[in-house]
């Protein structure tokens, strides 16, 4: 499980993607209809300029500190550590952010870009609703019109977040096409964007989509890994031995991993949604299932769950936020280079970790993050007690209590 041998030696430049056209090796790129090309090119130009502007980052940092409440703590989970009887487990507390998850790190950054571009209307897709809430939040703060596309299926699963978005002034559009989940919400958001491209900024919630989204979302999420690095050195005097994060689209994971990619001594584990188990085919684990090939969807080339005819498959996960057939292109590249190990935790394992974290640490984790905890507990058991694991506690589970209750046959 924990590979005591060193990480493969990877040429530094291979870890420095994307290239100018948004490629991470063969992955990424720009695969959208012609109508949207000028919009993504404009965004790439604006971001290139903004990312070199110290005033832009000052404003971003200010908002993260004073509005989001950063830095988020790195917390030693003593009782989870005792449970696993191995490496020490630390939790990076993104669940303590304003709006309850890491998603806001990204929406704060993209809202600043929208403002810079003079856009008056914000759209976003959402799965679990965390990104929708984080987007509606920044839109409310800037006084911008906000439309959130959400699969009809997810609207049912995540009712509290739907109401939260409405309270924040957003219009939640129920998406009835296809499998009525996150991928279909993204299709619908792309259609909206093509129609209202002049005044609309599309805040993509993960490190997927056409270039420059995988780049800029990663940059906005890297605050997680940068803080972790500093906190690890402060708290245990060395870099973590292992990092563990859940991967749906993969934004919290890349944010945690990226600042450590060149540190060969740090092992990284991306935990996908194993659903009913990889062997059943009912999962959302394009990187860790061994029968998945790369394909093209939502603007980029990446590992993608499709049938042999290229039709995108329905995915299965207890967690709406991980229920996506693709994954950010940089993760596909990191998989191929073997820099990050991609694994899966099943619904059942995630549910167990959800309860363990709640009961032992007094922290109710999001079902997404519970996948990371589930794997970290196994990993810790295989490691020595002088080693340290950091788990990205990417979100809090308040939004999931109805789901958990329903699955356990409890009526609230």
């Amino acid at each position, binding site marked *: 499980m924990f590979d005591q041998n060193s990480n493969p030696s990877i040429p530094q430049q291979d870890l420095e993607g994307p290239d100018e*056209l948004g490629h991470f090796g063969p992955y990424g*790129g*720009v*695969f*959208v*209809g*012609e*109508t*949207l*090309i*000028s*919009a993504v090119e404009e965004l790439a130009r604006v971001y290139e300029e903004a990312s070199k502007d110290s005033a832009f980052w000052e404003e971003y940092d200010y908002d993260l500190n004073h509005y989001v409440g950063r830095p988020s703590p790195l917390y030693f989970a003593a009782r989870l550590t005792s449970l696993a009887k191995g490496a020490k487990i630390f939790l990076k507390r993104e669940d303590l952010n304003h709006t309850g998850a890491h998603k806001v790190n990204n929406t704060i950054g993209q809202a600043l870009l929208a403002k810079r571009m003079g856009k008056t209307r914000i759209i976003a897709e959402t799965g679990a609703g965390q990104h929708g809430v984080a987007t509606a939040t920044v839109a409310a703060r800037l006084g911008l019109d906000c439309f959130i596309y959400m699969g009809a299926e997810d609207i049912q699963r995540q009712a509290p977040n739907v109401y939260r978005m409405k309270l924040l002034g957003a219009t939640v559009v129920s998406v009835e*096409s*296809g499998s009525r989940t996150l*991928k*279909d919400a*993204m*299709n619908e958001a*792309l*259609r909206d964007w*093509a*129609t*209202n*491209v*002049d005044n609309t900024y599309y805040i993509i919630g993960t490190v997927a989509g056409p270039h420059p989204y995988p780049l800029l979302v990663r940059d906005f999420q890297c605050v997680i890994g940068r803080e972790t690095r500093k906190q690890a050195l402060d708290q245990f005097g060395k870099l973590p031995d292992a990092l563990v994060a859940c991967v749906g689209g993969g934004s919290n994971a890349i944010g945690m991993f990226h600042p450590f990619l060149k540190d060969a001594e740090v092992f990284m584990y991306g935990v996908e949604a194993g659903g009913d188990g990889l062997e059943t085919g009912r999962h959302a684990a394009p990187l860790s299932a061994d029968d998945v*090939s*790369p*394909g*093209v*969807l*939502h*603007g980029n*080339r990446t590992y*993608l769950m*499709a049938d*042999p*005819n*290229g*039709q*995108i498959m329905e995915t299965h996960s207890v967690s709406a936020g991980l229920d996506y057939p693709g994954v950010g292109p940089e993760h596909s590249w990191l998989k191929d280079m073997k820099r990050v190990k991609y694994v899966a935790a099943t619904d059942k394992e995630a549910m167990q970790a959800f309860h363990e974290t709640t009961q032992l640490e007094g922290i109710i984790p999001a079902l997404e993050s519970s996948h990371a905890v589930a794997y970290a507990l196994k990993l810790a058991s295989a490691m020595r007690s002088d080693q340290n694991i950091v788990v990205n506690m990417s979100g809090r589970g308040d939004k999931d209590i109805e789901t958990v209750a329903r699955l356990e046959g409890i009526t609230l």
Partner: protein
Amino acid sequence: MSRLSEVTKRAAINGQKLLIPYLVAGDPNLSATEKLMHQLVKDGADIIELGIPFSDPSSDGPVIQLGAERAIASGTSLTDVCELMKKFRAKNSATPVVLMGYLNPIELMGYEEFTKEVSKADVDGVLVVDMPPAESFDLRQRLRDVDIDTIFLVAPTTGIERAKLITEVCSGYLYYVSLKGVTGGALIDANAIRTRVSELRTLTELPVVIGFGIKDVDSVLKMSDMSDGVIIGSALVSEIGKLSVTGDETSEDVEAATKLIRDARDALQV
């Protein structure tokens, strides 16, 4: 000379506008599509755009999404689309057919295999909606090697320099997207379209045809007046949606579904 350039040149010489219907292969089933294709030719279609069904058609509006869903429900794969083409070619060797779709089914088949299959099926052109020129080099070269045209779109948001670049890689015809939005949207600004199309004409010798939002004889006449022809998609797919899925459509049903194409041809002949 390729079938496509033969047809477009002949139309230009005769002062005729190109009438290009779009339908989804396998919607509602493959045998109906074959009948519809022959009927469209009879109705006066110059070129047929044959859609490869895809589960996530993010550039299409609800009508074509439903068409794709019906085609997938009838079990239509990209291999089936190529088989359908072979059947069509057994009876029709004159009408150019352009396959239009999204990249993922082609990626999964593999570019080499895809090129071999479409070449065997005697397809004339390929238009991949989500494959911009910058990502098209490999597939375009392969298709060119077997004399198949790669067609690209120009949108209202495409700048002039980019449009020039697109005309350099595009062959067959240039597809001008009339509106900001998805297929089946509403046409609003005819003057802007006219300006853009005349601008495109200064860049290329390729025929420029207009698609998206052309839904009746009136819009056919308006849009063909400022271009070399029109593509009719959603309006036709919407009629095809009324056919029975069980494959017992009569020739009258098929004729009824393509009425708009006949009306358009008649109106263009006057």
